């Protein structure tokens, strides 16, 4: 399983765009990049997944360069309610056996201030 590295914490203000970068130098050909969000006292929540280039949904955008050794989660115009821990994970998407495990690191604590 590819190891990921992301900042321990980030600060932002309401209304700003926030970019959280994750490095995954050993990503394999079959691996997808997935981001989760976790609010205090709740379980993590899947927010976005991608394989290459750019993916956008109603919550965030995910930018993946051609070499796929890093990825950037972009949160547009954050609000106080976006304060959470964001986890970057790398692993096989749909093939590889049902025993595929997810490895959560310690994530990035995003603190949004007024």
């Amino acid at each position: 399983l590819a190891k990921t590295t992301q900042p321990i914490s980030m600060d932002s203000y309401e209304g700003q765009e926030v970019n959280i970068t994750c490095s995954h130098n050993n990503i394999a050909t079959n691996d997808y990049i997935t981001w989760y969000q976790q609010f205090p006292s709740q379980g993590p929540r899947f927010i976005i997944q991608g394989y290459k280039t750019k993916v956008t949904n109603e919550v965030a955008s995910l930018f993946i360069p051609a070499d796929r050794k890093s990825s950037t989660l972009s949160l547009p115009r954050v609000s106080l309610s976006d304060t959470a821990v964001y986890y970057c994970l790398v692993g096989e998407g749909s093939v590889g056996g049902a025993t595929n495990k997810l490895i959560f690191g310690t994530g990035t604590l995003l603190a949004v201030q007024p």
Partner: protein
Amino acid sequence: DVKVTQSSRYLVKRTGEKVFLECVQDMDHENMFWYRQDPGLGLRLIYFSYDVKMKEKGDIPEGYSVSREKKERFSLILESASTNQTSMYLCASRAVERLQKQFFGPGTRLTVL
């Protein structure tokens, strides 16, 4: 959307007690997981089950056992609770078609006195 429920949000037990944590999912997912989360350590996998009556050890199975008699239900058992098992316990499920997309329950905060 998928719903994963856990039997308790908060639980207080005494050292040596047998503790059952139950998790139920309503989307017919094949795979289910138990994690514990501690400050500074992130989420650590205790056990997972890829089908009924199937189980595999995760990274920290010592002191725990699991049971999966029905597809929708996955139970975590602490045979003899100890203070170092005080933690947040999270259950998750997923479909095999989307290995990276797990659905988590709200968590059970267990305190062992």
